[in-house]
């Protein structure tokens, strides 16, 4: 893989299980050193896509190359170049930290002269100094995840596939895990990471929103937030929320509305209703209205909006 070839090329990749389409014609290209996030609800097809890229599942249609090798035809070449963390924690719980690292170093045939330094690096990176001889099953979730990452990078793969690496891990440890991801990216490692935490998407260079097996949006977090909403987002504090949602959704010029905590998020078309108009509609319905202001959308707003709009999506792959 020379420096100009993309790390990952996915072309109309599709996977069906019997009559269920798990991945439906996903197309995207990932450059070297990029951190790309696969964002979407559980069952959206993120894991299936990652598994196809690792050569664990054979694509039903379409193709993908990783580090320049076709995943269906040259899976072994692909495997030399990737590190993978599966969704389920999959190290040996009854082995110690050091024994797990030694095992995977052996499986990846890390050269003997590099062995000590690689293991040392993985232990330091995972912050496991002093716990080298602890059985893994006794470690807390965050440590386990970092050790799994350590095992996945022992052979210095240029590309990493991380499948929901932070699920079930406490927020502090999640934050730390993302710091590690960025350190690796700074060294030029390409990282494709899936998550269903919307806040984590903000840490990625680019994000791919995936729903029901389809890629529904792709871009930098900023670009997605800026362009994908198709209108202005307004946040209104009001009560009761249920009635307010029903009333505002029916109003002309409202593109979308959803409940966010104790507030409504309403998307109004550009040049349509203003704040006063919205207040008026709610007040006329006998709803108490508090603060109302224009806000910049979060990725969650974008995701909810795009999913609600239902795909006219070919443009999403652009």
């Amino acid at each position, binding site marked *: 893989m020379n420096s100009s070839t993309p790390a990952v090329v996915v072309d109309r990749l599709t996977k069906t299980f019997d009559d269920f389409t798990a991945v439906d014609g996903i197309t995207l290209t990932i450059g070297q050193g990029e951190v790309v996030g696969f964002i979407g609800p559980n069952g959206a097809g993120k894991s299936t896509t990652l598994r196809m890229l690792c050569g*664990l599942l054979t694509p039903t249609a379409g193709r993908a190359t990783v580090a320049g090798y076709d995943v269906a035809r040259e899976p072994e070449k692909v*495997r030399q170049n990737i590190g993978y963390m599966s969704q389920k924690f999959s190290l040996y719980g009854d082995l110690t930290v050091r024994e797990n690292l*030694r*095992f995977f170093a052996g499986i990846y045939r890390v050269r003997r002269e590099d062995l000590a330094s690689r293991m040392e690096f993985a232990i330091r990176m995972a912050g496991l100094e002093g716990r080298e001889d602890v059985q893994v099953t006794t470690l807390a979730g965050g440590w386990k995840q970092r050790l799994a990452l350590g095992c996945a990078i022992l052979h210095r793969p240029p590309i990493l596939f991380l499948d929901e690496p932070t699920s079930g891990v406490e927020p502090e440890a999640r934050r730390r895990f993302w710091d590690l991801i960025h350190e690796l990216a700074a060294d030029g490692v390409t990282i494709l990471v899936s998550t269903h935490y919307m806040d984590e998407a903000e840490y990625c260079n680019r994000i791919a929103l995936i729903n029901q097996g389809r890629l529904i949006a792709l871009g930098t977090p900023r670009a997605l937030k800026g362009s994908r909403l198709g209108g202005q987002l307004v946040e209104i504090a009001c009560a009761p929320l249920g009635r307010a949602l029903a009333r505002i959704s029916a109003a002309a010029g409202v593109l979308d509305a959803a409940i966010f905590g104790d507030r409504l998020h309403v998307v109004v078309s550009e040049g349509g209703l203003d704040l006063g108009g919205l207040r008026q509609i709610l007040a006329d319905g006998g709803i108490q209205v508090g603060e109302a202001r224009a806000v910049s959308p979060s990725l969650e707003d974008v995701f909810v909006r795009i999913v609600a709009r239902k795909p006219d999506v070919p443009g999403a792959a652009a």
Partner: protein
Amino acid sequence: MYERIAVMLMKEFIQLKRDRWAKFRLVVPLLIQMLVFGYAATFTVHHVATTVLDLDRSQASRALISRFVASARFQVVDWARNQAQVTRDVNDGRAVIALVIHAGFAKDLEDGQQAPLQVIVDGTNSNTALIALSYISQIVGLFSQHTAPTLRRTAASAAAPAVRITLAPRPWFNDDLNERWFFIPGVIGTITLLQVVSLTAFAVVREREVGTLEQIMVSPIRPVEFILGKTVPFFLIGLGDVTLVSAFGILWFRVPFIGDPLVMLVGTMLFLLAAVSLGLLLSTFSRTQQQAFALNFFFVNPLFILSGFAFPIAAMPAWLQGVTVVNPLRYFLVVIRAVFLKGVGFAALWPDLGAMALLALVMLAASVLRFHKSLD
């Protein structure tokens, strides 16, 4: 290649060392099964509950009955007074055998007539019944040999003495036809097979279930490396098993071992190779441990029954005999019994050794082919 297999082996043995239950699981059931089989697996019948109805009450009838009383094979549990009581004894299960001597028994003997002894057998356990019947005919035969000549003389029979053929059995290799000698080697093969097949099958399926298999499959490891790393430990455990239970059979049950240990070693290694290959093959058909358990159960029982362990293969219908050809246990039982009791070597056993080698190779090749490094 060696690096990967080496770390796989290291991992397996560390896991085994840490698993406190494993040490128990690997040894204790083997020894218990050995003890149970060693003592329970016998076709000899002792102290068969017997009820006696003597309606003749003669010297001859008492002489016949005393032969039964004196034999350790039978135990008289009731002296019945009438036919109804005999029926009740057998119906209630108090007695398995009823001996009825009708009035006129002694007189018939004296007259040189046929003197009938009525024997009623509870045939629900056909095996015990058959064995007990054979003891009865032995006892009655001896009785008539003893009694008849004197009776004949008193009856002044003019008939010429009949030509008599005597069968003098002389069993080879196991002079006393000691059944334990027959069973113990069979037990060694059978319980080793059960142990090794299930250990291997479960070890692979457990990794699949826990998810570690997926982690290994995304590495550049080759299927043959994984398979060797996963089977060699159980092969070694199997060797330990065979050594342990063989020593137990020889030292505790005093089964003779007159053959060549080298023949035994070669036979055992080929057999274990077939056993781990079978376990591996079963594991490629199971996604969960429950499935592996069900498959194991489905395969292992027929293997046991169709091995010649207890039921002679020659007595099976032809199609079933055909099925036994693919059963590695069948060949190993021939080898292990021959080595223990007959002391024959490679010259006599090569067809069985060859068959095991062939079966092992076919199953091993099939599992390497079936072990794709993919999840679909």
